């Protein structure tokens, strides 16, 4: 594999990695990485789930220690022993898994590990005011620094993570999938901040699975595959998607949605009528027909997750009814028995038993079905799981592996696969492609469509408007807990949805 | 009780063969010994006394086995001991009823068992039973208190009681005896706060009791070791309107009684010297001898020590017997 040599050996290169290797027991996570980052640029890292992006940045951050290769930072050899050393050297990191302490305040989180103190006592006032400054800079001056992080939604937490990175006097800020939990407008806000940073000659390493973002904010792209650099310093705006994807996956996958099918009219499978939960959503009515994919678009915090969970019976509605196939759903137990399934928003905390093998995770809701007289049928479960793994192109296909060892995208497939095993007739999907790489994403789309073709109704929540539009037959737009618009997917476009979602107030009179 | 090393007066040193023919060295006796792990002074004294008494006889080999933390552990220890075939076994069981079967097992194996302090219910489980009189101890305490109060002319006295570990049967027996003695005089216990035979638990129980009874006339504390804490609590609460009776007869308590500078005016004995006697008698049983002052050729089957009442007047006599 030939790697294009750096085009210029200018002095403004702040970070250079040569042949960096990092092995975990049994896994060679980094297997010869080359990377070159210049001051003031946004350098994007691209790669499939499990390619080694997070491992790479953790090596830079002093969390992991490289087993081989060379790192130069500001012209000096660099091997940070601890996260603190890296931070002191001027490298701040926003980690992929939110790294906040729920019971500390926002200000305390921002300055955790480098607290402002006098004789060991925390200087609370100045910590709070400095945090406030940073939050204001981040466009969120309204967040009170003394509030506990626990009370923030995911997007708010992401902002605190950014505030923490900015609380250091950094020359390089590494961002590992910062946009994964952000809504469209929040991403714009993030980009504004990144531009301010680079204007100050601060370098940014930006990781995302969303190619459009890389086009918009990135300067150069380095692609990782299986722990190796397969392409370095590609121009972010002009490199054709086809090339990027093939460098990442070794294949050419079209990052497109499967062709739309024609739906036959059928009586609805799911009927939701006047569903309300105080402070979350109000008076939501919707239907899903067999074989139909209904997408819900909306901002983060608009109450979509809560709506799905309520439909699934995991939360009790204040009022309204849920009917599946003419039968009222009043509890989660009946929902599952009647053929409803849900892939929740937070894979790790809501869906997976990370230390259990893949097949047991897949059969988590159906193992009783395999069992005879209460005795489980492990072989049967394994076979079925293997079939599903094939169907989903799960990698690795080995269903005995603990789920923990899978990359994010593949973990998501396991969650979806769970509901392919029973006879699921209605599938609720909450952000099914969050953190999932381009290749896996395309596969998931195929699977979802395949399900629909087999008559399964799908209710999909996604913060990515193109995904909602591309995948759904019908689109619902939700804002502040209310359905404000419903339209067939081919009669609504991205701009309209975004307008509805954000400047929604202008549309108040619009029919739902 | 005290951390002062000293000579042990609880041991029978009358081993001069000229004066006492039983003391003449005889055939060798291996005495297996098992008592619960010491968690307070009295039990510690039991083990120490047994050991010291055995050492006083040249013809005795002392084989102690640790009885561990509970009845199950002691059963296991006894099994091990039986397999080693000692001449006799001296056993202070965790609980007489729970170890009854162990006694039977040893007797069946041809090893005479000396049941110390906590009684086996079955006569077949022991050759000799030597124990203190728990009921009698309560009785003695109750009688002393009643007499004193009568003498003072108190008609409706407020009497407190601080027993030891309340779930033990021996505690129940003591309290029963106490209750009976008081009832004979028309008195009753106003408040009863159990401790755990330890000084800190004694302090806590006494503090609670003193709080519950703002005025008190008499107090019986079952155990002198926990009494250290009880006395401390009384002092801390600045109380002195009542008198107190102890239990067991520790050195510390006897000294305090003779000094007469605290509320402690008496203690009723339950002496760990019974362990020394048990060893002496075990030796005789092992050698097939009787007690020389008695006509009988063999040691009797049951001996119950009388609970004596130590007061200022006779304290000097008991001073050396305090443990």
């Amino acid at each position: 594999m030939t790697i294009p040599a750096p085009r210029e050996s200018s002095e403004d290169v702040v970070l250079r990695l040569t042949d960096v290797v990092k092995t975990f027991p049994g896994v060679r996570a980094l297997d010869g990485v080359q990377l070159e980052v210049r001051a003031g640029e946004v350098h994007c890292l691209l790669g499939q789930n499990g390619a080694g992006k997070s491992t790479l940045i953790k090596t830079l951050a002093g969390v992991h220690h490289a087993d081989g290769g060379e790192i130069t930072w500001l012209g000096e050899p660099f091997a940070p022993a601890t996260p603190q050393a890296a931070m002191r050297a001027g490298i701040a990191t926003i980690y992929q898994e939110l790294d906040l302490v729920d019971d500390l305040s926002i200000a305390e989180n921002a300055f955790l590990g480098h607290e402002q103190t006098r004789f060991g006592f925390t200087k609370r006032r100045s910590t709070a005011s400095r945090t406030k400054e940073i939050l204001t800079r981040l466009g969120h001056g309204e967040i009170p620094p003394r509030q506990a992080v626990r009370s923030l939604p995911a997007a708010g937490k992401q902002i605190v993570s950014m505030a923490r990175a900015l609380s250091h006097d950094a020359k390089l800020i590494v961002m590992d999938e910062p946009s994964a939990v952000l809504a469209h407008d929040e991403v714009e806000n993030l980009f504004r901040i990144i531009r301010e940073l680079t204007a100050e000659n601060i370098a940014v390493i930006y990781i995302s699975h969303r190619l459009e973002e890389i086009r918009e904010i990135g300067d150069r792209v380095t692609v990782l595959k299986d722990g190796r650099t397969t392409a370095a310093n590609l121009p972010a705006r002009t490199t054709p998607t086809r090339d990027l994807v093939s460098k990442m996956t070794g294949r050419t996958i079209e990052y497109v949605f499967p062709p739309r099918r024609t739906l036959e009219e059928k009586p609805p499978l799911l009927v939701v009528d006047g569903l309300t939960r105080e402070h979350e959503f109000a008076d939501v009515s919707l239907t899903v027909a067999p074989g139909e994919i209904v997408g819900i678009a909306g901002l983060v915090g608009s109450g979509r997750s809560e709506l799905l969970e309520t439909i699934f019976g995991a939360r009790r509605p204040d009022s309204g009814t849920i009917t599946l196939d003419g039968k009222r759903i009043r509890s989660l137990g009946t929902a599952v028995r009647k053929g409803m399934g849900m892939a929740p928003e937070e894979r790790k905390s809501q869906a997976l038993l990370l230390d259990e093998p893949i097949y047991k995770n897949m059969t988590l809701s159906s193992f009783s079905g395999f069992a005879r007289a209460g005795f489980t049928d492990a072989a049967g479960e394994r076979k079925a799981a293997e079939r599903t793994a094939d169907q989903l192109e799960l990698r690795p296909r080995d269903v005995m592996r603990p789920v923990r060892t899978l990359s994010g995208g593949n973990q998501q497939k396991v969650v979806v696969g769970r509901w392919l095993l029973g006879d699921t007739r209605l599938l609720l999907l909450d952000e099914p492609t969050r953190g999932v790489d381009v290749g896996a994403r395309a596969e998931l789309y195929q699977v979802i469509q395949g399900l629909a073709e087999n008559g399964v109704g799908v209710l999909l929540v996604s913060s990515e408007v193109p995904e909602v539009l591309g995948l759904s037959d019908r689109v619902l737009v939700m804002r502040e807990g209310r359905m404000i618009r419903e339209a067939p997917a081919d009669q609504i476009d991205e701009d309209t949805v975004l307008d509805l979602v954000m400047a929604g107030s202008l549309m108040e009179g619009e029919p739902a | 009780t005290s951390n002062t090393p000293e000579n042990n007066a609880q041991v029978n040193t009358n081993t001069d063969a000229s004066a006492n023919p039983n003391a003449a060295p005889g055939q060798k006796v291996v005495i297996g010994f098992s008592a619960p792990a010491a968690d307070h002074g009295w039990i510690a004294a039991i083990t120490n006394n047994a050991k010291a008494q055995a050492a006083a006889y040249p013809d005795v080999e002392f084989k102690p086995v640790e009885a561990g933390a509970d009845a199950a552990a002691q059963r296991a220890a006894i099994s091990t001991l039986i397999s080693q075939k000692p001449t006799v076994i001296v056993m202070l069981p965790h609980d007489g009823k729970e170890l009854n079967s162990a006694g039977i097992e040893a007797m069946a194996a041809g090893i005479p068992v000396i049941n110390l302090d906590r009684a086996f219910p079955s006569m077949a489980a022991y050759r000799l039973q030597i124990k203190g009189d728990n009921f009698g101890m309560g009785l003695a305490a109750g009688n002393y208190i009643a007499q004193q109060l009568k003498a003072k002319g108190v008609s409706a006295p407020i009497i407190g009681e601080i027993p030891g570990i309340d779930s033990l049967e021996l505690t129940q027996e003591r309290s029963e005896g106490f209750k009976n003695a008081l009832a004979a005089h028309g008195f009753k216990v106003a408040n009863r706060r159990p401790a755990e035979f330890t000084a800190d638990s004694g302090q806590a129980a006494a503090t609670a009791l003193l709080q519950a009874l703002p005025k008190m006339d008499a107090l019986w504390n079952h155990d002198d070791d926990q009494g250290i804490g009880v006395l401390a609590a009384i002092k801390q609460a600045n109380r002195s309107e009542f008198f107190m009776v102890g239990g067991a007869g520790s050195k510390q308590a006897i000294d305090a009684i003779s000094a007469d500078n605290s509320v402690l005016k008496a203690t009723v004995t339950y002496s760990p010297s019974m362990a020394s006697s048990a060893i002496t008698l075990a030796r005789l049983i092992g050698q097939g001898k009787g007690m020389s002052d008695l006509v009988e050729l063999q040691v009797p089957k049951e001996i119950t020590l009388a609970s004596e009442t130590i007061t200022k007047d006779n304290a000097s006599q008991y001073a050396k017997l305090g443990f």
Partner: protein
Amino acid sequence: MITETAPPEVQKRSQRRHIDDNVIRNLGLVGVLILLIVVGIITKPDLYSDPTWVKNNFLTILQQASAIGVVTVGMTFVIIGGGIDLSVGAIIALAGVWATTLATQSYGAAGMIFTALVVGICVGLVNGVLISYGKLVPFIATLAMLVAARGLAAQISGKQTQVSANTTINDIASTKLLGIPLLVWILALVVAAGWVLLNRTTFGRRTVAVGGNPEAARLAGINIKRHTLLLYALSGLCCGIAAIMLTSQATSAQAAMANLYELDAIAAAIIGGTLLSGGRGTIIGALFGVLVFSTITNLFAINNLSTEVQNMVKGGIIVLAVLIQQFRFRSVTQLLKR
């Protein structure tokens, strides 16, 4: 219908790997056991030179482990399911005392056994209700039960040691089947049943799910409240069985019996590889954990160590056992991965 796909090499290897975590942990414990026995042989060669004694000693160790072993099986389920049961000792006492009241004894052995089991299950159910429906932290709910059940046991027994006059019950402890004590058979049976229940039934699968990730279990349609309830009832049942075993061994029961069994059972389960935070654990590991403790006790007994030295050494051995286990665990895993 059944298609036989040739499994790829990778699969075989990793299949072994996953299972091996537990196996290696257990191997570590077996190593500790062997070490303890070797120390026994070195310190007491005379005893160990007698084959009959060795056999008997082995059975004694097992027998001493039997009641606490049964309790530990129940405890392991509760912990894997994300809970903890501090009341096991108290439940045993209550069940034992209740089964040996004169009234109960008048119904004979069957009545006594029935009573012990029912009392155990019922107390377990109360724990379960408090925890799953009352939303009490398991630690607090079962601590409250510990206190209350011992109180009730003292009340029922009048703080007396209640002697069992029932020879059938008393004989359980002395009966042997095929040369092996009945109590050991009971332990074997409970361990086997526990193993099957955990590894081969839907109940076991739910237990792992509920303890490993309650939210995921709930969203997969598992009724976690009911399951939690059942787990505590199961632990209560094990206590009921243990109550009969202990009553038979002591031919009596009393309110203070099975003192601190909760600590022993929890410790054995954890040493056996059960995660205190739930979601992972093995029955065989728990059994080994119990055996380690009962072998330590045996070693002390044959060497007649004084209690205080015993305790000091025991603390050291526990630490050592876990360290050995960890050491083997890591290094062997590394080796296998190569």
